[in-house]
């Protein structure tokens, strides 16, 4: 039964039994810890320049080597984790709230509300997102807050479509008719009866969305219009790595690995949540 396969104890058990999802979750937890307590993982200052020790390969003093200004790469990667997480969560938070709002209104009211909102979604989807972000950032200060806002504002359409589809089917369910017969108004039906039942697919979309947002932020920072140096972010450490890739491989490899592992972690967890919430979708 779909209902009983909801978010109860069975859900947690199924999720943890999925080894890949559990591994993804562990990676995410690890990076949470890194962001919360960077001092635990690196004793160096991420922005302390050390002209004598530039581009040193990994050693005991600098486990991941140093960059072209002699800064400790481990310290920079560790402090960059916070940027990535922040961008990932805030951007996806914005996208999810917007997507929920549009999807619920569109699916529940149908008719011209639906037509207008969905055409707007189609319009937004026509823009190549990355170039849209590039041009918007070109007009704004390149700051982490602007990046989060722009990624969020260009990433809500998928959630909106998902929520709309769920709402369309949920509003025909008998328990919605029952709520109407009890005298519940639209607001109550949307908030108490429709919204809570859309949360499982939303959680999946949000988890996968965090991975996408982290990638986008890295790409923007890599191009120099994201997080501005000297604040470390995985993307802008890579930029420094690109200039020295012929003789300092460690400068590109480690931030790249951090991005890879984190994004993979979110994707695995997201797919695990999807399979655990609805076993029928398994293997798709």
């Amino acid at each position, binding site marked *: 039964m779909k209902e009983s396969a909801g978010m109860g104890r069975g859900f947690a058990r199924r999720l943890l039994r999925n080894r890949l999802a559990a591994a993804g979750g562990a990676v995410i937890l690890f990076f949470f810890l890194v962001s919360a307590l960077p001092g635990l993982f690196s004793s160096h200052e991420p922005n302390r320049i050390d002209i004598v020790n530039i581009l040193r390969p990994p050693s005991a003093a600098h486990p991941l080597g140093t960059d072209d200004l002699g800064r400790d790469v481990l310290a920079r990667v560790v402090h960059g984790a916070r940027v990535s997480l922040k961008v990932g969560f805030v951007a996806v938070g914005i996208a999810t709230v917007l997507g929920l709002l549009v999807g619920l209104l569109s699916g529940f009211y149908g008719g011209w509300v639906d037509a207008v909102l969905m055409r707007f979604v189609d319009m937004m989807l026509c823009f190549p997102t990355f170039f849209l972000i590039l041009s918007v950032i070109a007009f704004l200060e390149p700051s982490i807050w602007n990046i989060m806002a722009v990624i969020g504002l260009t990433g809500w359409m998928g959630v909106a479509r998902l929520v709309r589809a769920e709402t369309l089917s949920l509003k025909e369910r008998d*328990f919605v008719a029952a709520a109407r*017969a009890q005298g519940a*108004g639209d607001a109550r039906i949307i908030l108490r009866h429709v919204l809570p039942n859309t949360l499982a697919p939303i959680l999946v979309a949000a988890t996968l969305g965090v991975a996408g947002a982290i990638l986008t932020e890295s790409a923007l920072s890599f191009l120099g219009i994201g997080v501005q140096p000297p604040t470390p972010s995985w993307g802008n450490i890579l930029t420094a790595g690109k200039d020295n890739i012929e003789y300092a491989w460690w400068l590109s490899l480690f931030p790249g690995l951090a991005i890879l592992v984190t994004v993979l972690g979110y994707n695995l967890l997201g797919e695990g949540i999807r399979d655990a919430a609805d076993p029928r979708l398994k293997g798709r």
Partner: protein
Amino acid sequence: MTGGIYRPETDGALLAMVNVYKTFPVRKSFFSGEDLRVRAVDGVSLTVPPGKTLGLVGESGCGKTTLARIAIRLLAPDSGSIRFDGNDITRMEGEVLRVTRRQMQIVFQDPYSSLNPRMKVRDIVGEGWLVHGLARGKELRERAERLLVRVGMPAEAGGKYPHEFSGGQRQRIGIARAIALSPKLVVADEPVSALDVSVQAQILNLLKDLQEEYGMAYLFVSHDLRVIRHVSDAVAVMYLGKVMETGPVEDLFREPLHPYTRSLLSAVPMLGDAPSERIVLSGEIPSPIAPPPGCRFHTRCFMAKKECAEVCPLLREVASGRFAACHFL
């Protein structure tokens, strides 16, 4: 006395539906571009007296459920009128309708789809109280517990979620929700069809007991003639969106008049006290998108003559208190 056309007695009736029509759009015709519409309810009149049960019986797809939902205005009819407790509710909207709905509730067929999986049982049962400002918090919890006990559930059920219960128990929860606001009318839309036979009897008896206790009227929809006979005071037999026959339950089962009713009853073993031969209908039920002209039933009727395909028979009184829509009665 006999011979008159059926006119629902609107005086004194709790629910009176007169000439109700409802169609649903299906798709546009590929050739003409015209909308194809399913004629779900095609001119139905019926009444439910206070505290009594009207059984609505018919095959799948004959419009029973649509009619039931129109009766409590979960759907609006295309035309016709609905009077409930002396008020015309046909076009009622907004706040007035919301308040009127306290008096009419529904029990659904599917005990899985009818309970919100994300709400605790006491919140499901007490939603009406909350919405109408009758109880909240601790009071709601206690009242919900008492009500759950009344429908045969343990009091602790209130704190659990629907998926922790079986189909029969979920149906009890659905019944508790329906009677929470002390309605005058409960529409029971195939309330036992999804349940095991042993559980069916328990639920039917519960519904009967509650009716005696609270004096509610039921519009009881079912395709199961035995269930209908067990619970109803009067019966209306539907076929393709129209009422074929209606009358008191004992008369109708003892001596079915309309050929469709006769064939239906003959299909149920040990029912219909007058021993009769099994009438086997040939063919399928016609499409409600393009129902046959004349009598809806003539394509399968063993009594059909030429005029049946041309003139649609009206529901008329053919014996005292008994109405049927057939040219030959």
